[in-house]
């Protein structure tokens, strides 16, 4: 379809940092900071106690940082980055949550995602779901193929 709307200027809708997105980014930022600080602390002081759990903590921290930054940025590429980060987060919280319940030997130490984020009032579990809803509602228009 040869319509001209794609040439009529920038689409202001291709951002995710306004309205509810601001709250989402703020909560992600809090988790990015706390997860980074916690993982850094765990790795620096007691890494040998549970290397796997603490590496997971660090991984979770990276995911939160990427999600925070990408949600705050406009454009299609950052949308994709956000989508990947939020999906990884969702898979992570489900897999780690399940493993921490079924295999407490491998996961004896707390991470952000242990027991589906119970230590953080299950916010780590709710956050990616809200994130996906928000990304869906603010998805970029399909490219004119």
């Amino acid at each position, binding site marked *: 379809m040869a319509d001209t709307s794609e040439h009529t200027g920038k689409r202001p809708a291709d951002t995710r940092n306004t309205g509810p997105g*601001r709250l989402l980014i703020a909560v992600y930022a809090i988790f990015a900071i706390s997860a980074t600080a916690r993982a850094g602390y765990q790795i620096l002081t007691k890494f040998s106690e549970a290397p796997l759990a603490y590496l997971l903590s660090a991984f979770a921290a990276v995911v939160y940082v990427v999600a925070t930054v990408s949600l705050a940025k406009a454009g299609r590429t950052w949308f994709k980055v956000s989508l990947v980060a939020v999906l990884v987060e969702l898979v992570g919280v489900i897999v780690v949550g399940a493993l921490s319940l079924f295999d407490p030997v491998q996961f004896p130490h707390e991470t952000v995602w242990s027991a589906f984020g119970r230590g953080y009032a299950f916010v780590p579990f709710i956050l990616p779901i809200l994130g996906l809803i928000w990304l869906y509602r603010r998805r970029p228009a399909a490219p004119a193929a």
Partner: protein
Amino acid sequence: MDAYFYIILGVGLLSTLICVAAGIMKKAPNDITILSVAAVELALLVYLVGSIVRVIAGEHIAGEAWEFWGYLATALLLPVAAVYWSILERTRWSNFVLAAVGVTALVMAARMNQIWY
């Protein structure tokens, strides 16, 4: 849990309630919500000054000292960051951002108490 925690618990919860209510009422951040967050900052500053005085007086932090100060420093930055972020976009959603400060501060204060004792 000491008095500092209970001060932040009270001020933090009150601030969160005020900000959530303002958000639900579709108000943009106003003097009341921003001042409630400022009150959280003030409570944290009281905690900071009190803690410095206690350390100088010879009290010992049971946990890692730098972890305690790290939490406190981060907590002190949160209200400032949230207010700045809420001024950039004056919509009801910014009130929910402000609301996040109170609960976060109280969780962090609880953790700081655990480290101290």
